[in-house]
């Protein structure tokens, strides 16, 4: 039963990532692209966690944690760059 649920979850998150990619390519403003990248990172975290359940292995959580931190820092850096034209002042 968990196998079926995992297949459903993988399919949903893959479709979500495709939609994010579309917004990343099409998004009319820069803010849209930043938002799409941020959402893509969050979907990647979900995918990694589901893969960890699929493999019954706890090694993937470090990757998910790192991705959460790097994704957040990246989003903030992009926004700082848009606001100030500089990241570290």
């Amino acid at each position, binding site marked *: *039963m*968990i196998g*079926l*649920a*995992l297949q*459903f*979850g*993988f*399919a*949903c*998150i893959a*479709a*979500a*990532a495709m*939609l*994010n990619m*579309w*917004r990343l390519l099409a998004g*009319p*403003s*820069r*803010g*849209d692209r*930043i*938002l*799409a990248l*941020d*959402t893509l990172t*969050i*979907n990647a*975290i*979900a995918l990694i*966690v*589901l893969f*960890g*359940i699929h493999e*019954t292995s*706890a090694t993937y*959580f*470090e990757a*998910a*944690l790192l991705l*959460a*931190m790097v994704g*957040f820092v990246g*989003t*903030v850096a992009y*926004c*700082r760059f*848009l*606001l*100030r034209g500089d990241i570290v002042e």
Partner: protein
Amino acid sequence: MNPIAEIVVSVLIVIGGSFALIGSWGLVRLPSLMTRLHGPTKATTLGVGSCLIASMIYFPAAGGSFSAHELLITLFLFVSAPISANMIAKAHLHRQGWSIDPNPEDAIKGALPDTGGPTGWATFWKPRDEPDE
């Protein structure tokens, strides 16, 4: 594995996947950036939280040991999602004010309208009462 735990984990995974899909569908479907911010920041974060809770239940039930990693990721995501949404909205407002990134769906054209209060918009401009150097 305990059948009740199996059912709970499966339901949480299905809910998490559905919420992530709905959030990204909102990102594509909604008309302007200010409305688009709602989908990913709320629905997708909730979906990932659901997946993480599923894995938090799955590993002890499958004979492994309980780990706080999932809780850490959930906490970090739930703290960081509103901050990044606020940063994106701020950058958007600021750029809209300079007409660099016109997005007519937000009905903000040209410079930002007056706030009507003692302080200006919370973008990088100085407060109004500070004199220019």
